[in-house]
């Protein structure tokens, strides 16, 4: 027979502890389950979600090599999350000296080769932190997700997961995801035939508990550069009722965001539509064509991204995304105004209306 009287002596203290600890128990148990899932062999889809979570929610400082064709470049990435405040810095260590710095809602691009600095405001409804993409059944229709087996890479145990595109409208990915941290140590961008178009290979990653603000200061002295800032007041001043939509989309793509975007160096707001297939995304920007400039038409390439520009109803339409060139062309040429008043100057941008 136990002696309950003795045990009761610690009851109040125990209850306090229990209540305190119970708040973290759920979180800890969840973490544990996730860890156990990793150890026990999670599905490839789960590895992708774990990777997305790691990339989005963890602090990390990494150096990686970006290889495209015969060209290789070393870059450093610094990523910090404090609550909902995300800071990020990407800089070339041996190339252009260009830097991308995001601190809070301010995004700054330093372009030393152009002696120019671009300053933008992040989208208030951007999914940078809040909405992690989930790989649903719809994605399985356009990507075949394979792998999950262990592979040694750079002295680490990784899981190799492949996203194979089912058609020519998207690229494939091969990912070597670190088993312990879920960080992708190596990423290959592939075409439909499996040929590697480019790859990112980390040479080191730190996962610091804290990253000081000093690590987000640019190396370049841009005090005498030209600074182009997005004006904050532009986004809500549209009075027209023009509504831009894509009449048709490549298989698997859906529109997820419709917003108005202020751009550095422009007084007019730019309509911004976002389409995604769950992995890749394409943005379409629509802005009134300026009479004293030659409109852009045709394909272009921006690093890994493809772009296609055209003119619709006296507006410049540009689609850009990490997809093959034919995909951005398809989408850009399908963008139409659904209101006749779009021919008037200015953009009418409907409230955000996800259209799945």
């Amino acid at each position, binding site marked *: 027979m136990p002696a309950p009287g003795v045990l009761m002596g610690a009851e109040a203290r125990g209850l306090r502890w229990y209540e305190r600890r119970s708040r973290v128990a759920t979180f800890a148990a969840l973490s544990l389950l996730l860890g156990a899932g990793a150890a026990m062999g999670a599905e490839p889809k789960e590895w992708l979600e774990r990777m997305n979570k790691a990339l989005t929610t963890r602090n990390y400082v990494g150096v990686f090599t970006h290889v495209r064709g015969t060209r290789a470049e070393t870059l450093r990435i610094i990523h910090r999350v404090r609550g909902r405040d995300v800071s990020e810095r990407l800089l070339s260590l041996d190339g252009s000296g260009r830097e991308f710095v995001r601190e809070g809602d301010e995004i700054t691009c330093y372009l030393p080769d152009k002696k120019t600095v671009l300053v933008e405001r992040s989208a208030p409804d951007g999914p940078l932190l809040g909405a992690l993409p989930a790989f649903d059944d719809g994605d399985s229709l356009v990507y075949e997700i394979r792998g999950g087996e262990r592979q040694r890479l750079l002295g680490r145990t990784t899981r190799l997961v492949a996203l194979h595109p089912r058609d020519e409208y998207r690229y494939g990915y091969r990912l070597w995801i670190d088993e312990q941290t879920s960080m992708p140590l190596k990423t290959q961008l592939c075409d439909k035939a499996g040929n590697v178009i480019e790859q990112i290979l980390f040479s080191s990653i730190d996962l610091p508990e804290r990253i000081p603000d000093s690590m987000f200061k640019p190396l370049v002295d841009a005090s005498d550069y030209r600074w182009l800032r997005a004006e904050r007041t532009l986004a809500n001043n549209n009075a027209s009722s023009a509504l831009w939509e894509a009449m048709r989309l490549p298989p698997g793509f859906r529109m997820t965001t419709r917003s108005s975007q202020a751009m550095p160096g422009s007084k007019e707001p730019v309509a911004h539509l976002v389409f*995604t297939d769950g992995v890749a995304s394409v943005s379409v920007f629509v802005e009134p064509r300026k009479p004293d400039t030659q409109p852009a038409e045709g394909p272009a390439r921006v690093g890994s991204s493809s772009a296609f520009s055209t003119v619709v109803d006296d507006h410049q339409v540009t689609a850009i995304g990490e997809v093959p060139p034919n995909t951005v062309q398809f989408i850009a040429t399908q963008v139409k105004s659904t209101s006749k008043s779009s021919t008037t100057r200015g953009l009418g941008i409907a409230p955000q209306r996800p259209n799945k």
Partner: protein
Amino acid sequence: MSEERPSSERHGERDSQLSAMFDGELSGAECELLARRLARDESLRGQWSRYSLIGAAVRAERGVRLDDRVARKVLSAIAQEPSYGDLPAGEAAAARSAAADSVTSTARVNAYERWLRFARPVVGASIAAGVAAVSIMWLRTQDDTAPALLASEAAPVTESIVLEPEPASTALVLTAQADPEPISNGEPERYSTPAPSSQTSIAPPARFANYVVAHSEYSGPLTRRMALLGIVGADAQSDGADAPQAETAPQAERARPADARTGGADGR
């Protein structure tokens, strides 16, 4: 009588006792009583296991090193115990020695040892699970011993993945040219840079940078970096420089030089 209290209340009390024990807040006598209960109560043993694992998980999330007093004592005692039962005198002394650096109360140590004597036969499996969790955490922290990149800037470092081909020197890490031919896993890697269309123009750096930055805000975690490489990478620089037609598409910055400078002259 207290034995007539509702079952949920009794369970809450036992959980509290177990919690207090994990926090080192339970006296020796209370530890012994709890151990006896543990021997009889399967659900309580399950709770023990959960607390062990949760504790390990919490510590791992916070990135602290293995310094939990209870865990160390349990590990020390278990490691030196060839079979269930009372600790031999010499091994008990060794266990005490191993725990002494983090324990200030001798009475508390003795209480734990007494508790372990009772608990060990019945919670062996649970302890093993706890030890496994703690060991995983220990292995994680062992990785931290390698020199960390930018440690002076980013301290304290919770984890550091140091990959084998990396030069030993931090300075070299920061300056060395990366190997353009990454290590292969035996998998054939066929490179195929898309053939540029005869009509493909190269994007103008500044204007398209705006688009890329805005677009990257809506890119997924996987493709976001790829998008940003379009404005930071060497590709972007040379492409722009090599393309005389670049400034014509989609709208040249020169169109509104005065406007462009508004608001920006003051710098950042």
